[in-house]
């Protein structure tokens, strides 16, 4: 099972000091956080993609390419890559390039994006979000799998005799996850292609995740990729830890109360009961995370949101130390012990290359 972190890349003032990092500081902090993730033994670093303030990661493959050069083991991914407003041709090129630079330590998570104005800024219409996600991804798959593509669709200028370069590393495209909170069409899309499905999971009651994952698993089997229990599922999580759980609550509360997205609404206690947010001791984080399996089944990837809402870099790095030393080793052991026999790991570049050789042998 893979463990990692995913970041939104928000620039948010620290509510306890009022200090707001510069964009430069935030970008450098994201790199430091990614390096720390590898140092403490995590498997995955994923960055969001945004095209409006207060977010910095508009150019994910630039950032991931730089991180690739500073790490040796970490899988570099996204959370999410906007399949609606990016040109699928550019996604094909950028991520193939990243694969070569990172020696295959790359996968990608597709998402639609929910910021209305971003669509018109990139010449699109949010009301076409689902059709864009479907058409653009269908083209992206062909660009990675066929050397020469003739193509015509609704949303992009046609292609005649187009070759996306560089070709994917070893002829194997990056593994793709599809992320969605509550659109059944996206679970259906992931299932149709036998791709991974990632449930954001955080900020929402678990019922949303549960029914999306159930649908994805059922349809994965329907489309003949294997039994439902072998479908490739990833989940988000959101935690804040201190050795003493009351210290964690006291320290995190001002960040919670003022957080973008959920601040100024329910109390930390209510939100912790209603969503997967866990603020407490490492043991509480372990127990809560193990409970996710009870409603989604055996799953392959767990990413945590650790660095939002204005938490200072120093605190985030301390959190990663706790995650890497006290939480993830126990989770690996416990999930391994619980997992049903035959449930596959999440595909990696190496496993996809090996699978392809088996087919051609």
């Amino acid at each position: 099972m893979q463990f990692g972190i995913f970041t939104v890349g928000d620039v948010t003032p620290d509510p306890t000091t009022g200090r707001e990092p510069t964009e430069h500081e935030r970008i450098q902090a994201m790199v430091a956080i990614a390096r720390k993730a590898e140092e403490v033994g995590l498997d995955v670093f994923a960055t969001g993609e945004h095209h409006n303030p207060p977010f910095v990661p508009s150019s994910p493959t630039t950032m991931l390419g730089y991180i690739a050069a500073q790490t040796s083991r970490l899988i570099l991914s996204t959370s999410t890559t906007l399949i609606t407003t990016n040109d699928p041709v550019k996604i094909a090129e950028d991520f193939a390039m990243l694969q070569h630079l990172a020696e295959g330590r790359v996968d990608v998570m597709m998402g639609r994006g929910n910021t209305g104005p971003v669509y018109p800024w990139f010449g699109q219409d949010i009301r076409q979000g689902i059709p864009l996600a479907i058409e653009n991804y269908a083209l992206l798959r062909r660009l990675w799998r066929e050397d020469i593509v003739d193509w015509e669709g609704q949303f992009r200028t046609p292609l005649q005799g187009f070759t996306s370069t560089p070709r994917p590393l070893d002829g194997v495209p990056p593994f793709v996850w599809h992320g969605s909170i509550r659109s059944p069409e996206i679970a259906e899309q992931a299932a149709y292609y036998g791709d991974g499905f990632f449930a954001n999971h955080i900020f929402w009651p678990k019922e949303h995740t549960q029914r999306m994952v159930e649908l994805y698993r059922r349809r994965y089997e329907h489309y003949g990729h294997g039994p439902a229990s072998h479908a490739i599922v990833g989940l988000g999580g959101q935690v804040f830890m201190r050795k003493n759980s009351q210290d964690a609550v006291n320290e995190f509360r001002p960040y919670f109360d003022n957080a973008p997205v959920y601040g100024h609404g329910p109390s930390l206690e209510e939100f912790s009961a209603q969503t997967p947010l866990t603020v407490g001791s490492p043991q509480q984080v372990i127990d809560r995370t193990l409970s996710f399996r009870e409603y989604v089944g055996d799953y392959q990837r767990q990413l945590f949101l650790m660095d939002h809402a204005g938490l200072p870099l120093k605190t985030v790095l301390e959190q990663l130390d706790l995650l890497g030393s006290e939480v993830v080793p126990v989770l690996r052991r416990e999930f391994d012990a619980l997992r049903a026999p035959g449930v596959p790991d999440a595909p990696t570049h190496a496993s996809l290359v090996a699978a392809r050789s088996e087919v051609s042998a």
Partner: protein
Amino acid sequence: MTHSVAVVTAGLSEPSSTSLLGDRLTSAVREAFGGDVSIVTIPLRPLAHEITNALLNGFAAAELQSAYDAVAAADTLIAVTPTFNASYSGLFKSFFDALPADVLVDKPVLIAATGGTERHSLVLEHALRPMFSYLGALVVPTGVYAASSDWGSGAALGERIARAARQLAKLVVAAPAGPSADPFADVVPFEELLRG
């Protein structure tokens, strides 16, 4: 056949003339159905915090979710608001703003409002009716507005309540709400999505 009726009342005090009007309408609707009804009353005041949180977070907490489930499951809805600043109250509007999409489509709805004076009676026509029309509801032609003075004068209010209730019952019988579609159970096959 038992008809299920959800009654949403947005009065802020308890008791309020808004909940009183809701009670009167409920009795009249029960009578119009010949007594064979199940009633779920949903006062909004106890849900006020959860309604605000739902607007901020995008999901309903447990109690609000059961209120929404009750509205979705009901054959018909009676919606009663006080008139604030020449419109429905903010709490009333927020409850419907956070209601999941399409819950009211094809559902017969009886609209009603209370107010300090008769001069606001058109709140039904310029605020409530357009909102419920937008939400796809079948809005009963007769809405019921009760000013403070109506509670101490003649039979006109009672007659209006009875007429609205009769019309609601006719709509429910003529246009029974079918079970709402479940996009997770009846997923659109991907080949169809691919064809665009």
